[in-house]
């Protein structure tokens, strides 16, 4: 009954711009949730607030009953849409950096994932292509042992062929009792790995539903729904 994540009446204002407006939802354990919306809909802001990196203007967020902040750092792993690694690093330095930084980091899992991703531990981070860098960031984020994973556009910079590999890795390596929130605008490529999706439209959640029930009730894909809601 206890939600893993509770977002209650959360708003965010930057100057005059209302980025998020009174957003509330709960997320249970063992779910992969798609947070969907066009660019600028407030997805990344919401993710950053759940990660405890950006303060809310109003409302409250809690993870496993704890208000987001210092205490929830060990419960959440966040993959930002911009790399967190430094250019001087080699892949193995990035892994060592995470291991030093997070007590819950699983090196064995990281090495297994690197192998699966065809990433060479000796390559320099600076020479990795955008797609390979995304694979590295995903490896680092998923190798932590936490309750909630936040992935911001994990397939944003990858060509369609390589997307499959990333999806494969997400399904293969996420731990089943934790939950994942993945934000993306590439709905068609990702909808099959979601349990539930949320549409974020101009700072409000306009739909929060099980993916299979969308298909069953409306006889259409999440992508079609998405296009109808956000199409111009």
């Amino acid at each position, binding site marked *: 009954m206890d939600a893993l994540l509770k977002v209650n009446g959360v708003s965010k204002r930057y100057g005059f711009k209302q980025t998020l407006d009174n957003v509330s939802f709960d997320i249970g354990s063992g779910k992969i949730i798609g947070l969907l919306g066009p660019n600028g809909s407030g997805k990344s802001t919401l993710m950053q607030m759940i990660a405890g990196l950006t303060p809310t203007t109003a409302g409250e967020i809690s993870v496993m009953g704890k208000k987001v902040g210092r205490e929830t750092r060990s419960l959440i792993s966040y993959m930002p849409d911009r790399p967190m690694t430094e250019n001087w690093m080699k892949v193995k330095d990035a892994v060592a950096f995470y291991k030093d930084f997070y007590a819950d980091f699983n090196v064995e899992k990281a090495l297994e994932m690197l192998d699966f991703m065809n990433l060479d531990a000796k390559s320099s981070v600076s020479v990795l292509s955008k797609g390979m860098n995304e694979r590295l960031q995903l490896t680092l984020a998923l190798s932590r042992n936490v309750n909630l994973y936040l992935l911001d556009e994990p397939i944003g910079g990858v060509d369609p062929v390589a997307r*499959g590999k990333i999806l494969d890795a997400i*399904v293969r390596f996420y731990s089943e009792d934790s939950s994942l929130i993945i934000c993306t605008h590439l709905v068609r490529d990702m909808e*099959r790995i979601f349990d539930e999706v949320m549409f974020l439209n101009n700072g409000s959640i306009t739909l929060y539903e099980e993916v299979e029930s969308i298909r069953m009730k409306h006889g259409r894909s999440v992508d*079609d729904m998405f296009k109808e809601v956000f199409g111009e």
Partner: protein
Amino acid sequence: MSIEFDNNLPIYLQIMNHIKRQIVSGLLQPGDKIPSVRELAADLQINPNTIQRTFQELEREEVVETKRGLGRYVTSEESKIMAIKKEMAGDLLHQFIHGMQELGFKNQDIVTIVKEAVTADGGKDQKGANLDGRIAEG
């Protein structure tokens, strides 16, 4: 294993049909072990809970059975497999007949057309006879 999914239809139903088809065509034999939830989810790049649901439904229909601690297996009951075969054939037939009726064919015409088509096909389709033969026996 690869399936072309239609995102407009519930995925668990599509995977159920896919597995049933594999059983009917003999790709999965009675008593064969089927992949774990995690394996199949990763192979198909599908949400694991969706796969879980697929397996639950297949269990409910007694197409697969779970042996505690060992995994899931295709049913060994030939009669069950026959039943799936008939069900799938029934679906195909229903679709076909419905389509033909929509085109304005009368039932008698449909029978004639099918008869002719089967005769014409039979001559050049000797290779498929083995598989077809097995299905026909059912």
